[in-house]
C-alpha cells in the first residue's frame, strides 16, 4: 500500500500531469489557421471551377469530414468500453481518450460543413444530372425514373436524412458531454460515485453509439451511391474509427511522454497494451474490409459490384492495392514483435503512418464517387484542411487541463500495471 502511495505522489506531481501555461498556443493557432485557410481554398477552388471540379472539392472535403467526425466518435466508444468493463489498467490514460472525445463539436461542424457546402455548390452551378451533389439521390434530375430510388425512397428523403443527423448529433453531444463532466467533476470533488454513474451511462450509451455510428455511416458514406449497399458498412466505419482514435490518442500519449510528462502514468507497460489494441484493431479493420470486398466479389450482384468496379479502375486501383498494404501489412509486420510494441519511437511513427492510411482508406471509399475523374490538387487541400483544424483543436484541448483523471478510484491499479505476456 505504501508502495502505491509513493507512486501516486510521484505520478500526480503538478509538473507531471499539467502542461505549462499557454503550452502549444502558437501551435494550435497555427494549425487551426492553416487548416481553415485550406478549407477556404477548397471552397474557392470548387466554386471557381466547373461543376466537376466543384464535385471533386466537395468529395475531398467530405472525406476529411468523415475522418474528423470519426476520431472523436471512436474515442467516445473507447471511453464507454473502458467504463463498462471497469478497466483499471487504463485509468491514467483515459483522460487523453476523453480529450479526443471532447472534439465532438469539431466533427459535427465538419459534417454540417458537408451539408452546407453541397447546398451552396448546387445553387452556384446549373441544375441537371451533372450538378455537384454529394448525395446524388437529393438531385431530382439524377433519380428521375430510377427504379432503385423508387424502391428506397422512404429511407432516402431529406426529412429522414437531416432529422436522423440531428438525432445522431444530439446523442453524441449528450453522451460525450456527460462522460466528460463526470470525469472532470471528479477531478474537483473526488466523488468516486461519478465513476459508477459513468459506468451506468455507458451501458446505455454503447448500444446507442453502435446504432448511431452504423446508421451515420449508411447515411453519409454508403448513400453517396444509393444503388449500392453493404450490410457490414457500419462495422467498417467503426473499425476505421477505432484505428483512427487509438492512433491519435497513442500519439498524444507518446508526445506527452517525450515532453517529460506522464512519468509512471504512461509506462512501457501501458504503451505495450495500447500497441496491442492498435494492432488488434488494424487486423480487425483488414478483416472487415476484406470480408466486405470478398462477399461482394463472390456474389457478383450487379448493384453491389459496381461500387468496387469503379474503385478498381484508373488511379483508384493503385489505392485499392496501396491501402491494404499500407493499412494492414506494414503495421502488421512492424507491430508484431513484442520489443517493438514497447518502443515509443516505433509506435509513434506507426501512429502517424496509420493516421495517414486511415485518411487514404476514406478517400478511396468516398472520392471515386466523382465518376470519370482522376486525382486533382484540390484532393490534397480538401482532405488536409479539416484534419489540421482537428489537430489544432486537439492540441488546445490537451493543453487545457490535467493530463490524467486526478482522483479516479482506479488510479492505484493503473499505476502498478504490468504485462505478464
Amino acid at each position: 500500500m505504501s508502495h502505491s502511495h509513493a507512486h501516486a505522489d510521484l505520478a500526480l506531481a503538478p509538473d507531471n500531469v499539467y502542461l505549462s501555461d499557454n503550452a502549444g498556443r502558437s501551435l494550435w493557432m497555427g494549425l487551426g489557421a492553416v487548416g481553415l485557410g485550406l478549407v477556404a481554398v477548397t471552397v474557392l477552388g470548387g466554386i471557381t471551377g466547373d461543376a466537376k471540379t466543384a464535385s471533386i472539392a466537395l468529395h475531398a472535403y467530405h472525406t476529411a469530414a468523415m475522418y474528423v467526425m470519426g476520431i472523436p466518435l471512436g474515442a467516445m466508444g473507447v471511453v464507454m468500453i473502458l467504463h463498462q468493463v471497469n478497466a483499471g489498467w487504463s485509468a491514467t490514460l483515459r483522460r487523453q481518450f476523453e480529450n479526443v472525445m471532447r472534439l465532438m463539436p469539431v466533427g459535427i461542424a465538419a459534417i454540417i460543413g458537408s451539408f452546407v457546402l453541397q447546398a451552396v455548390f448546387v445553387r452556384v452551378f446549373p441544375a441537371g444530372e451533372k450538378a455537384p451533389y454529394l448525395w446524388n439521390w437529393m438531385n431530382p434530375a439524377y433519380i428521375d425514373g430510377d427504379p432503385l430510388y423508387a424502391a428506397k425512397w422512404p429511407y432516402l428523403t431529406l426529412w429522414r436524412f437531416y432529422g436522423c443527423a440531428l438525432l445522431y448529433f444530439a446523442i453524441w453531444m449528450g453522451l460525450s458531454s456527460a462522460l466528460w463532466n463526470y470525469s472532470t467533476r471528479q477531478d474537483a470533488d473526488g466523488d468516486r460515485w461519478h465513476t459508477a454513474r459513468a459506468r451506468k451511462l455507458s451501458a446505455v450509451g454503447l448500444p446507442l453509439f453502435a446504432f448511431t455510428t452504423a446508421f451515420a455511416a449508411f447515411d453519409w458514406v454508403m448513400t453517396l451511391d444509393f444503388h449500392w449497399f453493404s450490410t457490414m458498412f457500419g462495422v467498417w466505419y467503426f473499425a476505421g474509427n477505432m484505428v483512427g482514435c487509438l492512433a491519435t490518442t497513442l500519439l498524444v500519449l507518446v508526445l506527452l511522454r517525450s515532453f517529460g510528462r506522464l512519468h509512471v502514468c504512461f509506462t512501457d507497460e501501458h504503451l505495450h497494451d495500447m500497441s496491442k489494441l492498435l494492432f488488434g484493431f488494424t487486423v480487425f479493420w483488414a478483416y472487415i474490409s476484406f470480408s466486405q470486398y470478398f462477399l461482394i466479389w463472390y456474389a457478383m450482384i450487379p448493384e453491389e459490384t459496381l461500387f468496387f468496379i469503379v474503385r478498381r479502375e484508373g488511379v483508384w486501383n493503385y489505392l485499392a492495392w496501396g491501402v491494404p498494404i499500407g493499412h494492414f501489412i506494414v503495421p502488421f509486420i512492424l507491430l508484431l514483435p513484442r520489443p517493438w510494441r514497447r518502443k515509443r519511437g516505433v509506435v509513434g511513427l506507426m501512429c502517424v503512418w496509420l493516421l495517414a492510411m486511415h485518411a487514404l482508406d476514406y478517400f478511396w471509399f468516398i472520392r471515386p464517387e466523382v465518376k470519370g475523374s482522376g486525382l486533382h490538387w484540390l484532393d490534397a487541400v480538401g482532405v488536409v484542411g479539416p484534419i489540421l483544424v482537428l489537430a489544432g483543436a486537439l492540441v488546445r484541448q490537451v493543453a487545457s487541463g490535467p493530463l490524467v483523471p486526478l482522483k479516479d478510484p482506479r488510479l492505484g491499479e493503473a499505476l502498478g500495471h504490468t504485462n505478464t505476456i
Partner: protein
Amino acid sequence: MASAPDQTGAAALWGLAAEFSDPAAVSHAAEAVRDAGYTRWDVLAPFPIHGIDKAMGLKPSRVSFFVGFGAFLGLTSAILMQGWMGGIDYKIIVGGKPLLAWEQSMPIMFELSILFGGIAAILGMFLTNGLPMWYHPVLKTPALSRASDDKFFVVIESADPKFDRAGVEAMLRGAGALNVEEVER
C-alpha cells in the same frame, strides 16, 4: 518405503527443496536464487504467480518462433495448394471467376496459417518444455505434493554447477524457507 540405493550404495541426492508459505515469499526467494547465479532450479506452485518469470530470470518463451514458422508454412502451402488445384490440376470456371484469383484463396490462406501456426505452437511447446515427461524426482517426495495444494517450493538440482549441499541449504534458509527437504533421484 526404502528408496533403491544407487551403484555407489548411498541414496542419490537429486536436489534440495525449500518450502514457502505464500507467493510473495517464494518470489523473493526466486530473486535471491536468480541473483546467486544458479541455473538448474525451478519453482513449484499450485497456481501461476504473476511476475514469477521475471523473478526467476526466465528468458522469453521461444514458442513464438515456432508459431511464426508454422504460420508461414501454412500460408505457403495454401498458396501452392490453391494454385495447383484451381489453376493447374482441375481447371474449372466457377461463377465466372478467374482460375487463379487471390480473393478466393484468401480464406484458405488465412485458415491454413492459423491451423499450422496452432499446431506449431503445441509442438513447439512440447519441444521447449520437455513434455511429455513420465517421471520426475519431485513426484517421489511426499512433502512436495503440497505444491499442488497450498505450499510453494524452490527446488535446486544437485546437477547445478554451483551446488554444494550446505551452501544451498544456508542460502535457502536465509531467503526465508520454512523447511528444506532432500529430494532423491
